[in-house]
């Protein structure tokens, strides 16, 4: 799955698209080849993106986890026949291992046909010619997963093998007679292929039928010297063995031709396996995370209801916590304010991820969604400066990234701006942020701008969302229990986004949250005293 054109590494990291890729990863080589070619749908292909998501959702309705697992299990074990197909197409003679692979591939196609018979949405059909090839190779089936160049392929194989066995037996007998005679002459029970004869034991030289192959001062390394009958038996055996080799080669050539004539069917079946693998993974994903097809529209909007950011939802579920879905309507540039730890960044991630999923033709994790096909999704702000190392300060890194984002901003850009300019003074940060919004609006981009700075939405004449915030005071957990504090905060926080008029900005609740997270009472009291000083108000 290639989302490089849609996002850069920073944005892909912020939206955790690697998590998405892992969820959708196919299990077979065939699937991997299809998967790597998946790219975002470009502007103008809204109908195709919509159709893709609907196709996946339809498949998700027809398969359950057991069926998905069964299909993936077959696909996981299906051998890769790419090399066999290529060799057959070139006219090469295939080896027996290739026939094993092809037979197993044909078996897998048959198993898949049986498995998905009731799931028309998976669009599976065995390619014409696969059953024929299976019938041809079936004659060599040995056990469940084995293959042997059996006599059933050609009666001449049987004849040559019988002759070779007979010839081998004759040679063995001739050699055994020799060996027994030599062993007797050397007073031994038996002889290996090579054997030592001590010089001291020799009287009048080596016995007949023995030749020295290496000589040492005190002994000779010897082997049997074949006599005329044994040599003749050996000659006959070699001829018979050669005849077997020729017969086997002819059978392999004939089988390879059978494969060659069915290469188009194998190509088609391989492609279908790949598409099935990818579709099952996508349907499994959609089913597991209750995703629905978004309405893909030409306007540059992101409108979501009960939308979730799946990587976070999954982590929270693992920790036994629940995820609070959000609703938002982004049309043009919108500002998002709210308390610390109120989910502003997650709201941006949710909108960005849903736009990315829709662009990739996937159903989205929301109750409903209307989304445009963005050509570029750009993350700016917290976490976006990681790839810019060197001597740049945090502020400089942010500005450099802003420069790059603005340079490419267009009406098909979704910009997600997370507390930009937080590292400079509030006054100048606010000014920079308003200028950023104006530039994005001028480019026609859709943007969601999260900030703690007051007066931004009004000054920039932008729609303003805020997080509802704390319903009540979260109870500090005992003894600095961070997990307990977070759970308490989650119970007290209302993560709902509401649209507000003008510049109405709620409290950041930063000091209350600092208390919740374990800072001591004296420190907190001091902070509240200083809060009342308001030295910047002159």
């Amino acid at each position: 799955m290639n989302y490089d054109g849609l996002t850069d590494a920073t944005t892909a990291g912020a939206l955790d698209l690697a998590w998405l890729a892992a969820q959708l990863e196919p299990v077979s080589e065939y699937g991997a080849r299809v998967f790597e070619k998946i790219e975002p749908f470009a502007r103008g292909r809204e109908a195709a993106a919509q159709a893709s998501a609907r196709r996946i959702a339809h498949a998700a309705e027809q398969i359950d986890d057991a069926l998905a697992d069964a299909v993936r299990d077959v696909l996981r074990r299906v051998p890769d026949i790419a090399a066999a197909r290529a060799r057959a197409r070139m006219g090469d003679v295939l080896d027996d291992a290739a026939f094993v692979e092809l037979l197993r591939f044909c078996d897998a196609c048959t198993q898949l046909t049986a498995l998905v018979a009731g799931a028309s949405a998976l669009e599976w059909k065995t390619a014409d010619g696969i059953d024929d090839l299976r019938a041809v190779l079936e004659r060599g089936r040995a056990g469940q997963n084995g293959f042997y160049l059996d006599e059933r392929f050609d009666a001449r194989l049987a004849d040559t093998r019988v002759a070779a066995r007979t010839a081998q037996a004759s040679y063995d007998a001739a050699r055994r007679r020799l060996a027994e005679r030599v062993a007797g002459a050397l007073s031994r029970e038996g002889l290996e292929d090579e054997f030592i004869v001590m010089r001291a034991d020799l009287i009048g030289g080596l016995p007949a039928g023995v030749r020295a192959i290496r000589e040492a001062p005190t002994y000779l390394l010897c082997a049997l010297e074949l006599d005329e009958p044994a040599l003749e038996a050996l000659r006959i055996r070699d001829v018979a063995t050669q005849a077997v080799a020729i017969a086997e080669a002819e059978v392999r050539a004939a089988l390879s031709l059978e494969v060659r004539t069915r290469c188009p069917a194998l190509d088609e079946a391989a492609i279908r396996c790949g598409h099935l693998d990818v579709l099952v993974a996508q349907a499994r994903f959609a089913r597991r995370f209750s995703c629905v097809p978004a309405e893909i529209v030409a306007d540059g909007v992101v409108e979501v209801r009960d939308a979730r950011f799946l990587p976070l939802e999954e982590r929270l579920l693992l920790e036994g916590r629940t995820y609070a879905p959000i609703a938002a309507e982004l049309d043009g540039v919108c500002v998002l304010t709210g308390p610390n730890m109120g989910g502003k960044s997650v709201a941006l991630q949710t909108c960005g991820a849903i736009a990315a999923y829709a662009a990739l033709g996937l159903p989205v994790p929301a109750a409903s969604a209307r989304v445009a096909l963005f050509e570029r999704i750009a993350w700016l702000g917290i976490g976006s400066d990681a790839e810019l190392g060197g001597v740049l300060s945090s502020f400089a890194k942010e500005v450099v990234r802003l420069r790059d984002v603005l340079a490419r901003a267009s009406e098909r850009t979704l910009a997600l701006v997370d507390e930009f300019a937080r590292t400079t003074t509030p006054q100048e940060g606010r000014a920079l942020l308003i200028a950023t919004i104006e530039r994005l609006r001028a480019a026609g981009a859709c943007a969601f701008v999260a900030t703690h700075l007051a007066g931004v939405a009004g000054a920039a004449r932008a729609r303003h969302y805020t997080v509802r915030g704390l319903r009540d005071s979260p109870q500090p957990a005992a003894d600095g229990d961070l997990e307990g504090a977070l759970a308490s905060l989650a119970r007290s926080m209302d993560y709902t986004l509401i649209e507000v008029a003008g510049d109405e900005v709620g409290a950041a609740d930063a000091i209350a949250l600092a208390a919740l997270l374990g800072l001591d009472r004296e420190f907190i009291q001091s902070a509240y005293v200083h809060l009342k000083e308001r030295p910047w108000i002159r």
Partner: protein
Amino acid sequence: MDVGGALLDLALGGDSPGIAVVGTGKNVGKTVAVRAILGAAQRRKLSTGLASIGRDGEAVDAADGRPKPRFFLRAGTTFATARGALPSSPAVELLRVTEMPTSAGVLVIARVREPGYFEIVGPPTASGIRVTLANLRALGARLTILDGAVDRVAAIAGDDRAIVVATGAASGATIDDVATQARAMVERLATPAFDPLRPFVKIDGALTPGAAAEAIARDERRQIVVRDPSQIAIFGRAFLGLAPRLTVRCERPLRVVATTVASIGGDRYLDPVALARAVAQATGLPTFDVYASARAAA
């Protein structure tokens, strides 16, 4: 005498799943010993599986170019080799095409249908060997024979497989050298299992000369425990010097049952009778000369 049969009897004395032949070096008659055992198993009509560690059984040694014997396998023998090492004829019954890589393509498990000469190529890793041996047994081999490399014996540690140590003229300039090398290897491989009721200290990874020297310096009296004897990275005379000063033990012991000797190795010749006797005395194990069809008197 039937040396292969005698080795087979020693190996099958326990509830052994098979035999591994390991050498003290190259050209010490390891493959010849395997061939003798294989021949005996075939004569007794035992359902046999043959595997190798790394590349072996090829006509020419890949490392030094010297000629090496291939294996003549009879019908019914199961073996593991690389896909690229299978002969085009005689055809074999391919039982399993694995995804395990070897130096000559993926590993396949095959059964001989028509007798012939076969090259045996094995997986290079201990885990690959364990899987291969399990595959051979699952596919019907009652006895598995492993043409092994001593640095991969971890693969067979703890499974009661009998080990035959092959040594020969190629591993020492004199009979005394060869016997000493053989004794060191046998004692190292035969490192006893540790006694959990007595004090011990476990070593993560290999026991190196440096670690052993430190233990001696601090007068370590506890058992020094390695996972298996292949984790003792101290060889030859150095190991023999260490043995009386440290109590080295292992978690997964090996069962060394015999040694074989090859009096010809490379360009070197040693007296076969004296060599076999010296190795038998040094190791205290039954010692056989496959070439001479003889067992040495210790």
